[in-house]
Structure formats: structure tokens, C-alpha cells
């Protein structure tokens, strides 16, 4: 691998961009294929580039079946992420489930008393206001967003960003009545029915969950269902 290819690859990974490294298995020439550009010394035709982008979207490395050239696409996707708004009790088991399921987990809660290190060891935390926090997180189609505060002051700003992001999952804790109020506020704020329907509410699969851990299981199960059925 040429040094400049390695540098670009590391930069893409550091900034959590999706990228496929396409290698010619005989010559060793390589090109990085991003969604919007390519970079490298291996010349690829349009068919190969689009095959590499398909590999990116499918999150699946493999040989590119295009012509007789032995090409291999190595997919480098950032880890899936779960952003949890509200460092509440349910967040504690949810953090464990999401991390063991392979997510990088981030908790957003500007209320210092909730988001203490002791309650969430080893988790990235943001004490910014949810809309500011989410704006800075480059939310992509491998991100799930869960709001757990059921306080409009905190949930709504997060949802306003989430609903116009590429997040593959948006879910909000709260009763049907809480959700009805939420729908009303978002409608008033100019969000379309289609945008608002992205919210999974009441959150989680219906398994009659009662305890915080059970509710976390129902949320993790629903996120998995959406991810795998996509």
C-alpha cells in the first residue's frame, strides 16, 4: 500500500467516513472508493466503482465480479453508533446491550447529576444541549438515536435534528399520550407527517417489558430488527 493511500484511509476512518479499498490482486495497485470520489493509482471503470459502492452499502468485503481483472474491495465502515439522549436508569442496561451488540455508544445529557461517570463507566458522554450535541456527531445511516428523558425540553431538540438526519432508527420513550403531545409540537414546528412517523413510539418491541433492563432489551431488539430488515 502506498503511503498516500494509507494516510487517506486512516483519515477517512478517523472522520468516520465509509470507504472501500479496491486492490488489484496481481499488481497491488489500489484506489480508495468513497461515496463521492475516488483516490489512488488503480484505474477503475464505472462498473467497478459502482460495484465497490454497492459493497460499501452492503457492508460486505469481497471480490468485485467485473470483467477479468482480479479486484478485491475491502470495506471500511465505521462502527454502528447509538446515541442515547437521557442518562436515565434505562440507559444503564441499554449501554451494556448496545456495546455488546457492536455499537459505539454515546450518552447525551446536559443535566450533570444524571450523566455521572460512576453510572456509565467507559461510555462517551456529552453534556451539551441535545441539538448542539447531535449537530456535531455527523449522524449517518449506521446511527441509531434513542431519546429517554420524556422531557420535551431535552427530547424535542434531539428529535428535531434526528428526524432530518440519515439515522436508521429513531425511537422515543413515553406513553401514547406523551407521544401525542410530541407529534403536535413537531407538527407545529413544521415537521411533515412522514418525518414524524420515523419515530418509534412507544419505543421498543411489545414484549410487556416492565423493569428498566427489560425495556432496554425491547429497545435493543427493535433496533436490531430495523437494522437487519433494512
Amino acid at each position, binding site marked *: 500500500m502506498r503511503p498516500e493511500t*494509507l494516510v487517506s484511509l486512516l483519515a477517512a476512518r478517523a472522520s468516520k467516513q465509509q470507504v472501500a479499498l479496491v486492490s488489484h*490482486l496481481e499488481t*497491488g495497485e489500489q484506489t480508495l472508493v468513497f461515496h463521492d470520489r475516488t483516490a489512488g493509482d488503480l484505474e477503475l471503470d464505472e462498473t467497478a466503482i459502482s460495484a465497490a459502492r454497492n459493497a460499501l452499502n452492503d457492508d460486505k468485503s469481497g471480490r468485485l465480479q467485473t470483467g477479468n481483472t482480479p479486484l478485491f474491495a475491502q470495506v471500511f465502515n465505521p*462502527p454502528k453508533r447509538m446515541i442515547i439522549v437521557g442518562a436515565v436508569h434505562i440507559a444503564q442496561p441499554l*449501554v451494556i446491550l448496545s*456495546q455488546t451488540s457492536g455499537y459505539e455508544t454515546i450518552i447525551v445529557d446536559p443535566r450533570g447529576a444524571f450523566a455521572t461517570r460512576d453510572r456509565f463507566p*467507559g461510555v462517551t458522554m456529552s453534556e451539551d444541549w441535545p441539538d448542539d450535541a447531535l449537530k456535531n456527531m455527523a449522524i449517518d445511516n449506521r446511527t441509531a438515536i434513542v431519546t429517554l428523558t420524556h422531557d420535551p425540553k431535552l427530547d424535542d431538540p434531539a428529535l428535531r435534528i434526528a428526524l432530518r438526519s440519515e439515522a436508521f432508527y429513531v425511537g422515543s420513550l413515553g406513553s401514547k399520550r406523551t407521544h401525542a403531545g410530541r407529534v403536535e409540537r413537531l407538527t407545529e414546528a413544521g415537521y411533515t407527517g412522514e418525518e414524524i412517523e420515523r419515530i418509534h413510539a412507544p419505543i421498543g418491541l411489545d414484549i410487556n417489558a416492565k423493569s428498566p433492563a427489560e425495556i432496554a432489551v425491547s429497545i435493543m431488539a427493535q433496533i436490531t430488527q430495523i437494522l437487519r430488515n433494512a
Partner: protein
Amino acid sequence: MSETVIDLHALNHDDVVEKAAAWRETGKKVALATVIATWGSSPRPVGSQLAVDEDGNMIGSVSGGCIEGAVVHEAQEVMSDGKPRLLDFGVSNEMAWEVGLACGGKVEVWVERLD
């Protein structure tokens, strides 16, 4: 419980390339091996990577430990001449006596040098 969480989290991170680059930074020769294809039951999926430095240090894996030794050996050649190599491992392979896969699968590994 907290330590378990952190460990499991670490397992899900695949940062072989970063570690390989860090070795390269220190001036060492480094080769990167990648699983290109698998047949039958093989422990690591396509795209799995192993980095090797000139002293034989390894990070990552391309199998459950069956072929790493042979890959490290080939990686030394790749580091000296800079030519990438495509390696085949499997029970039907002539190398099977040395590095046959206990699982009965087959795996193809591409080894390149970090220039």
C-alpha cells in the same frame, strides 16, 4: 460489570490498519494480510486482517490460529521484495501437511507491504 463492558466493546473494534500504520511510523517494515475469500467453515470472514512487522509481531487474525504462522512467513518475503502475494490455504492444498485448516475450510489470503 464495567470491565466486561469495556472488553466487549474493544472486541468489536477492528483497528488493525491503525496499529499497522503505527508500526510503520516507527520505521519498521510491515505487511498486511487480508482474507479475500473463504469456502466451507472458516473462522474469520472475508475482510479480516492481520498485520505483521519485520520482527514477526502480529495484530489481528485471518483464521483461528491455523495459518497465521505460514502467513507471517510469507509476509517476510513480501516485506523484502514489495510484491503482493495471493495465498491459498485448505485441506486439499499441498501445504496442508504444514498448515491445514483443522476446520476443513479453505481460505484465500492476500498479503501486501505497507510502503
